[in-house]
C-alpha cells in the first residue's frame, strides 16, 4: 500500500504541526551523516546549499560543466508567492486553491497547501541572497500576472527570473563548497542507485571527461534531476535534460507517478524544419500584454498587419471571456491546436497562431507614457514609440531572442507561436516528506510528481523547486536521518556497490558493442515523433496502442542497430546521449500505457474520447480520482498502484475559465 504520510489535522496546520513534531538530528550527528544530491537546478542547488549549511556532509553532482548551468536557468516569466503586496485579494488559500484547480484536481491538497505557505519565505530568502527582482519606482517589489489566476502574485526579473534565482542558489551552493560542507562533482552523470537492505545508500556516477565509474556512499540520496520532456525529442528543455537518474531509481523499485501528465506550453516559437534540435519558449508573461489571434478566414495568406481588425478571431478572448488570454496553459494550447487543425493556422507551415502586442503597446503602455510625459493627443506613431520603451524593459530579452531565431521583429509584426512540450507534471512518486517508496531515496522539484496535478500553472515550477530544496527537505530529511545516526558510512567495496558498478559497466559495453548503422539522434527523433503524434496534445486509445507497439519495435532496433563512435574512456557525448535515449524509449512506453489506462481527460492529458460538448477536458472523478503509481515488474511490464486523492478542503468541479 502507498502511504503518502500526510499528517493529520486541519489543512492549514499540517505543515506547522509536522515541523513541530518531526525528529531532529543534533549538530554533532549531522556532521557524521552524508547526503548525495543529484542535479543542481533550483531544487538540487537549494537543497545542497541548505543541507550543507545545516552541517550535513553533502556531495552534489551535475552533468554540466558547472552547477550554474542547470536548466532552471532558462525559466523566464517568474515565481509565484502569496505575498498580496498588490492588495488585490491574494492569500495563501487563494494560491493553494488556484494551484489545485489549475492542476485539474489531480494533486494532493496537503502538498499544495504547504507549497503556498512557504512561497512567501522563498521571496524573502531570495531577496536576502541578492536576487535582483523587478522593483517599482518606490523601491518595493513589483508583480505581474500569470495564467490561471486573477491576481498579480508573480515576482520576476525581466524575462530571466529562473536565471536570477538559480544564480542565487548557485552562489549559496558555492559558498558551502568553499566552506567544505559540499563537495561538487561537475561533468558527472549518475548511472545507478545503490540500494542496501532496502535503503538507498549511494550512487554510481560516471566522470564524463575520462569515462571512469565512481562509487559514492550516502546515508540518503536526493534526485533533483528535472523533467523528462525530451522524451518528445523536441521540447523547450535543454539538450541534456534527461530521465536517466529517475529511471534508474524506477528500475530499482521506485514508483513512477502519472508519467503521461505532460505540459504543452502554448507560446513557443514554431518548428521550422527537420533540422530543428529544440524549441524555444516565449514566456507566458507575454500573454499579459499580447493578444492571441488567427484570421477569421481559413488559409488566409495575408501578412498579419494587412488583416483588418474585424477579420481577426481573438479565439481565447472569444471562448473564455473571464480569463481571456490568461487561461491556463493546457486550455490555451488546445485552443490553438483546434484553430490550426481547423485550417486557420498562420505562417508557412500553418501550424502557428499570432501573439500580437500592438494593442497594448499603444493603448496600455503608450498612453500611460504619453500621459506621464504630458503629451496631449499623441498620434499612433508616438504611442508605439513610447510603448516600445516600456515593453523593452519588461520583455526586452524575449523580443531579442525571438528576433534572433526567426529574423522577424516582434515590435513590428506579431510573433508566430505554437504549443510545445515544456514541463512534465509526472515523475517519481514521493510521499509528503518527498521520499520515494525506497527509504532514503528522495525526489525534489520537477523530478517528482507531487504538486501540480495534471497541469502546472505558470510561475509555479520555480516556486516548487525552491520550496522543496530550501524549506521542505531540510525538515523532512531529518525525520529520516535521526534514525540513521548509528549507521557508519558503508565502504564502497560493499558487494552492492560492486554489483551496481558491474551493471553499469556491462550496459556501457553492450551499447558500445552494438556497432550498428543508425545514430542515437535518429532514434531519438523517431521516438519523439511517435510520442508527439500519439501521446501529445491529444491522445486516443487506438493511437496509444499503436504507439506502444511502435516503441517496443524501436527499442529492439535501437539495441541491435545503434552506432556509437569513439571510445568509452574519453569525452564521448554520443555515448552519454545513447544511455539517455535508451531510458527515454522505456519511459515512452510507460507514458503511453499510463495515458491509455487513464480513461478520462484532465489537465494536460486530453483523451479525445472524453470531452465535453464544447471540447473541454472531461474528468471522470468517480473512477480516476487517484495518482497512478507504476511499479516496474519486468520488460514491458508494469503494475499499477493507486493513491486515492481525498479532497477535504476544495470541492472538485468542472474547471471553468469562461
Amino acid at each position, binding site marked *: 500500500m502507498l502511504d503518502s504520510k500526510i499528517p493529520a489535522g486541519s489543512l492549514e496546520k499540517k505543515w506547522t504541526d509536522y515541523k513541530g513534531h518531526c525528529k531532529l538530528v543534533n549538530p554533532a550527528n549531522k556532521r557524521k551523516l552524508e547526503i548525495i544530491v543529484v542535479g543542481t537546478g533550483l531544487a538540487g542547488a*537549494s537543497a545542497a*546549499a541548505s543541507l550543507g*549549511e545545516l552541517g550535513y556532509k553533502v556531495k552534489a553532482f551535475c552533468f*554540466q*560543466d*558547472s552547477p*550554474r*548551468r*542547470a*536548466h532552471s*536557468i*532558462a525559466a523566464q516569466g517568474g515565481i509565484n508567492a502569496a505575498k498580496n503586496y498588490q492588495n488585490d485579494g491574494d492569500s495563501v488559500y487563494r494560491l493553494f486553491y488556484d494551484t489545485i484547480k489549475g492542476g485539474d484536481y489531480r494533486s494532493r491538497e496537503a502538498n499544495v497547501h504547504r507549497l503556498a505557505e512557504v512561497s512567501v*519565505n522563498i521571496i*524573502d*530568502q*531570495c*531577496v*536576502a*541572497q*541578492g536576487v*535582483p527582482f523587478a*522593483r517599482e519606482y518606490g*523601491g*518595493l*517589489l513589483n508583480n505581474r500576472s500569470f495564467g490561471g489566476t486573477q491576481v498579480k502574485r508573480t515576482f520576476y526579473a525581466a524575462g*530571466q527570473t529562473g536565471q*536570477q534565482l538559480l*544564480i542565487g542558489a*548557485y*552562489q549559496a551552493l*558555492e*559558498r558551502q*563548497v*568553499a566552506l567544505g560542507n559540499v563537495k561538487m562533482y561537475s561533468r558527472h552523470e549518475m548511472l545507478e542507485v545503490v540500494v542496501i537492505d532496502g535503503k538507498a545508500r549511494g550512487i554510481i556516477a560516471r566522470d564524463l571527461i575520462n569515462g571512469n565509474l565512481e562509487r559514492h556512499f550516502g546515508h540518503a540520496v536526493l534526485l533533483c534531476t528535472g523533467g523528462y520532456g525530451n522524451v518528445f525529442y523536441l521540447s523547450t528543455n*535543454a*539538450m541534456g535534460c534527461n530521465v536517466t537518474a529517475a529511471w534508474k531509481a524506477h528500475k530499482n523499485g521506485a514508483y513512477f507517478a502519472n508519467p503521461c501528465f505532460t505540459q504543452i506550453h502554448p507560446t513557443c516559437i514554431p518548428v*521550422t*524544419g527537420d*533540422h530543428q*534540435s529544440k524549441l524555444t*519558449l516565449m514566456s507566458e508573461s507575454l500573454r499579459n500584454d499580447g493578444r492571441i489571434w488567427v484570421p477569421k478566414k481559413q488559409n488566409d495568406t495575408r*501578412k498579419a498587419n494587412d488583416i483588418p481588425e474585424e477579420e481577426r478571431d481573438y479565439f481565447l478572448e472569444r471562448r473564455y471571456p473571464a480569463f481571456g488570454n490568461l487561461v491556463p496553459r493546457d486550455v490555451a494550447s488546445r485552443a490553438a491546436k483546434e484553430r490550426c487543425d481547423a485550417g486557420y493556422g498562420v505562417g508557412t507551415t500553418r501550424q502557428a497562431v499570432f501573439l500580437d502586442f500592438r494593442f497594448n503597446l499603444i493603448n496600455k503602455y503608450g498612453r500611460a507614457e504619453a500621459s506621464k510625459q504630458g503629451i496631449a493627443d499623441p498620434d499612433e506613431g508616438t504611442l508605439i514609440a513610447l510603448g516600445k520603451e516600456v515593453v523593452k524593459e519588461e520583455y526586452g530579452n524575449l523580443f531579442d*531572442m525571438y*528576433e*534572433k*531565431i526567426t*529574423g*522577424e*521583429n516582434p515590435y*513590428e509584426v506579431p510573433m508566430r507561436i505554437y504549443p510545445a512540450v515544456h514541463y512534465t507534471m509526472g515523475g517519481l512518486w514521493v510521499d509528503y516528506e518527498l521520499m520515494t517508496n525506497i527509504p532514503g531515496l528522495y525526489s525534489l522539484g520537477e523530478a517528482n510528481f507531487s504538486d501540480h496535478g495534471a497541469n502546472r500553472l505558470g510561475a509555479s515550477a520555480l516556486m516548487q523547486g525552491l520550496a522543496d530544496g*530550501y524549506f521542505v527537505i*531540510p525538515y523532512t530529511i531529518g525525520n529520516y536521518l535521526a534514525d540513521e545516526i548509528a549507521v557508519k558510512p558503508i565502504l564502497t567495496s560493499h558487494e552492492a556497490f560492486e554489483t551496481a558498478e558491474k551493471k553499469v559497466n556491462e550496459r556501457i559495453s553492450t551499447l558500445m558493442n552494438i556497432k550498428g*548503422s543508425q545514430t542515437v*539522434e535518429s532514434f531519438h527523433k523517431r521516438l519523439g515523433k511517435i510520442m508527439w503524434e500519439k501521446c501529445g496534445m491529444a491522445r486516443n486509445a487506438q493511437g496509444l496502442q499503436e504507439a506502444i507497439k511502435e516503441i517496443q519495435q524501436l527499442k529492439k532496433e535501437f539495441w541491435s542497430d545503434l552506432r556509437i*563512435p*569513439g571510445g568509452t574512456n*574519453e*569525452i564521448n*557525448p*554520443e555515448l552519454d546521449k545513447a544511455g539517455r535515449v535508451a531510458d527515454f524509449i522505456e519511459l515512452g512506453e510507460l507514458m503511453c500505457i499510463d495515458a491509455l489506462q487513464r480513461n478520462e481527460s484532465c489537465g494536460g492529458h486530453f483523451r479525445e474520447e472524453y470531452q465535453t460538448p464544447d471540447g473541454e477536458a472531461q474528468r471522470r472523478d468517480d473512477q480516476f480520482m487517484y495518482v497512478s503509481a507504476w511499479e516496474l515488474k519486468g520488460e514491458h511490464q508494469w503494475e499499477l498502484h493507486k493513491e486515492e486523492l481525498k479532497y477535504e478542503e476544495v470541492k472538485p468541479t468542472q474547471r471553468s475559465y469562461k
Partner: protein
Amino acid sequence: MESRSYMEHYSMNLTLKVWKQKNADSRGNFETYQVKDISSEMSFLEMFDVLNEQLIREGKEPIAFDHDCREGICGMCSMYINGRPHGPWHGTTTCQLHMRAFKDGDTIVVEPWRANAFPVLKDLVVDRAAFDRIIQAGGYISVNTGVSVDGNTIPIERENSEKAFAAAACIGCGACVAACKNSSAMLFVAAKVSHLALLPQGDVERKTRVLGMVAQMDKEGFGSCTFTQACEAVCPKEISVMNISRLNKEYLLAGLSSEK
C-alpha cells in the same frame, strides 16, 4: 543582426575549419569539413549537428562541443567563430547565432576558447571551473536558508536595482576571457562584484568579497586588464565595462581601508 519583417530563406554549402584535439595532453590541429544544403533557418549548433551526424554515418569521429539550453542563457556553448567569441552577431551566444549570418560558399573557422585558465579538454570543449572557484572566493551574500526579513522591508532604488540586474545577467560563458588579448577575467569578476555591491544586502561583505575574488582571479592565471573593452564587445549579455570601473573602485576602497 540581419532582420526584416519577413525573412527569405535560402540554403548554402560551407567549408568548415574546426579545431580538433584528442584531450588536454595532446596537440591539436585544424580539420577541414564540407557541409551541404544548410538552411538559413538553422542555428549554428544545428549546423554542427548536421555535420556530426554526417561524420558518424561516415564512420568518423564527431566534433565535441559544449552546449545545453540552446536559448542563450545557460552559458555552456563556447565557440570562437571567425576570430570572434560566439561569432559575428552582437549580443548573441553561439547557440543563438543563426545561419542567415552566413552565405553560400563561406569558409568558417571554429576554435575553442583560448586561455591558460581554460584548458582544452577535447576539440571545442574547455574547462571553465576557474570561474566557479572565483565565485567560491566571495561571489555571494552569506545568508543561510531560514526566516529572512520580509522582502519589502529592503526597498531598493529602481535604478540601482536595474544596474544590479544588468550585471547579474552574466551567464559565465567566458567569452570575455576568450576575446581579451591578456585573457583577463575582469568583466566576469566585475559583473559579480557590481551585482552584489549595488544592493544593500551585499554591502556588509563588499570589501572581503572584492579582495577575495580578485585574489582568486589572479591565482587562476587570468591576465591583467588593459581596458581594451574587447570583452564588452563580445559579451552575449552586453555587460558594460563600466562594471570594471566599479570593480576597480571597490578594490581600491577595500584595499585602502582594509585593516588586515
